[in-house]
């Protein structure tokens, strides 16, 4: 049945997440100001709270699915702060790749580690197939050479899933993912980027110089290069169908925080939305508040839709890109509009709104820009190949 409401249990879990988020929020400004530091893996307050993920384990028939809830929990956490967590769960974007394409052995061996995902290179942005990093088989080892940038949690991760080509002439088909653990000779973490926002987060640059890893570190284990098109590459792309809705949820949690702050601040000064009034019964600010709220809710529902589909093991390639395209756009414009509504207090560092405006802006850039998402959507609905629509 179609139902877009939450069960009581769903609500309870999200209420707990909200409690934790409010605690994390207390640390948000500090780590934004001290971008060279890392937030602790566990906050001192942690002992006073029970882990919401424990509750997530037992789902009843009338509760929302794990996939859907994990999106709501993600957004609920970034509603507090992008980076600071009561307890940092292990696992980064690389772990999603491991879950999507790793062999059972690989999953059990590295599932417990925090793995970053290294795709982007100085020469290529969202053009993931233009990967220049090479992996050459020598004896029973792969030898990696190349540079990676914008590696999220790249400094603190214990290892990384890195994209490299085993045969440039094969184009996308030659691209494979490899697992490289920190400390491997020839694997160097160069620097932490200084960014507009998400400053507490670490975004690293990697260099691989004749970095040798065992042959079985190729993710999925398949060394063959499919004949036509993007066989292997598609496998790699599968990851994105899981990470894109998640990335959108991350941004939308922040956008929601910005809207909630704005709504409360204005309500305290007597500016409140009347849900029954028509357009002629609204002020300019009320109208904007309604539109921001509609945009965020629509975008979040796109995220839930994409994750619900994968929970039903239905294809969600289109919907994952829709959620990222919509989520990225709204993360940008919702925070922009909230500041506008708060006027000169909206830009004050006395409040977190300006930080959310900066943090949110990454959403439409990483994991494939909004333009890339629209390209994927257009190809999907038009039935075009990358050659037909580029």
């Amino acid at each position, binding site marked *: 049945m179609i139902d877009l409401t939450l069960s009581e249990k769903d609500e309870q879990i999200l209420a707990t997440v909200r409690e934790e988020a409010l605690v994390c929020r207390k640390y948000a400004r500090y780590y934004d100001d001290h971008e060279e530091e890392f937030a602790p893996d566990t906050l001192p307050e942690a002992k006073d709270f029970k882990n919401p993920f424990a509750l997530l384990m037992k789902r009843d028939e009338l509760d929302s699915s794990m996939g859907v809830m994990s999106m709501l929990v993600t957004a609920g956490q970034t509603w507090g702060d992008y980076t600071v967590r009561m307890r940092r769960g292990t696992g980064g974007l690389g772990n999603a790749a491991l879950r999507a394409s790793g062999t059972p052995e690989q999953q059990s061996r590295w599932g417990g580690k925090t793995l970053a995902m290294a795709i982007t290179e100085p020469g290529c942005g969202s053009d993931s197939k233009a990967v220049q990093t090479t992996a050459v088989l020598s004896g029973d080892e792969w030898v990696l050479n190349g540079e990676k940038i914008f590696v999220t949690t790249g400094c603190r991760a214990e290892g990384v899933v890195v994209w490299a080509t085993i045969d440039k002439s094969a184009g996308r088909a030659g691209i494979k993912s490899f697992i490289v653990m920190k400390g491997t000779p020839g694997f160097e973490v160069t620097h932490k980027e200084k960014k507009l926002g998400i400053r507490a987060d670490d975004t690293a640059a990697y260099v691989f110089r004749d970095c040798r890893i065992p042959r079985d570190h190729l993710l999925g284990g398949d060394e063959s290069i499919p004949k036509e098109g993007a066989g292997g590459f598609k496998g790699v792309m599968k990851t994105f169908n899981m990470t894109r809705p998640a990335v959108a949820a991350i941004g939308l949690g922040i956008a929601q925080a910005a809207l909630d702050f704005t709504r409360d601040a204005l309500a305290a000064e007597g500016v409140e939305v009347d849900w029954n009034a028509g357009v002629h019964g609204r002020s300019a600010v009320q109208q904007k508040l309604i539109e921001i709220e509609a945009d965020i809710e629509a975008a979040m529902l796109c995220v839930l839709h994409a994750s619900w589909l994968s929970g039903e093991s239905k294809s969600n390639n289109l919907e994952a890109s829709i959620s990222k395209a*919509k989520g990225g756009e709204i993360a940008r414009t919702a925070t922009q509009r909230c500041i506008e509504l708060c006027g000169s207090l909206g830009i004050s560092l006395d409040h977190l709104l300006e930080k959310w405006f900066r943090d949110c802006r990454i959403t439409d850039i990483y994991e494939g820009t909004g333009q890339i998402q629209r390209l994927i959507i257009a190809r999907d609905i038009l039935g075009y190949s990358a050659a037909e629509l580029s």
Partner: protein
Amino acid sequence: MISFGPTEEQELVRDTVREFAKNEMREIARPCDEKRELPSDFLQKSWELGLVAGAIPESFGGGGIGRSPVTNALVLEELGCGDVPLAAAALAPGLFVAPLLDFGTDEQKKSLLPLFVGSSFHAATLALLEPTFSFEVSSLRTVAEPKGSGFSLSGKKRLVPLASTASHLLVVARGARDGVAGLEAFIVPRDAKGLAIAPEAERTLGFQCLPRFSVELDRVEVPASARLGGDRGIDGARLLAMLRTASAALGLGLARGVYELALPYARERVAFGQPIAQKQAIAFMLAEMQVELNSLRHLVWKAASLLEHGVDASRAATLAHVYATREVMKIADNGLQIFGGHGYIREYPVEMWYRNARALTVNESVAAL
């Protein structure tokens, strides 16, 4: 529980209506628009879908499926994808029946519902809109004043669908209290003394085949029993939420219809040596349409599921309505743009959808419930 999966029953209903829209609406939409005329047999054919009678309890001779705002949203999307004015004509009796089912007293239901369970189309309607540019539902000008044991209704209404053939009009007026909470609805027979229906249907941009009339109420006296809901009255906020959700659902269907016209056209139309769909400017327009269709559908479903749970849906319905007002127009506009010069001539359908899109999404449009 968050779920985007319709039940098998809902899929069945949706597919039936989709077929009806394809075979009985798409074809005749253009001639109906050009002739400004509603084919007599269309109302009867639509009636046989049981959209109105189906929701009426068996105890009153109805289908007894019960009211389901979610199923309703699915049906409205499909009908809107067929043709919105024809859909609005078919659904006009629903504008009267739905509030009766939700807010009516047992006596009111007993006496009126049987009219709508017969095998042939029975017209009834709702009178809400008023002739002001700054129309605001939370401050209606039509008033209901206590008169003796009943009420006296005075005011002007417009764009009342099928008013000239309706047996009853449900007249929305402002009662004792201010704002939406003070909204009252009265059951008024068409031949009531003091009720005047304009001899000619109003002519409007779009909706050209749907007869909609101005109605004037000059101290129309009705008994206390005509007040919908009796002493309880109605839940104005819920009525409004249902109206907004319904028109957003119709708008969703309309927008999807435009998208389904524009996409194949863009793939076939060749300019500068290749299909225009291979140009990012056009391809991204289509992608944007797809994104907004999904977004709007989710908002409609959210409002509908709150209504289905019987909880306050004002917020969700307003979000869906505001979103539809913005996006449906934009999609119709871009759809026309993709057709270029062909979008502007009446040989092609899209200009009609453009007019209907604007006519549907003006504030608090009353098209369906």
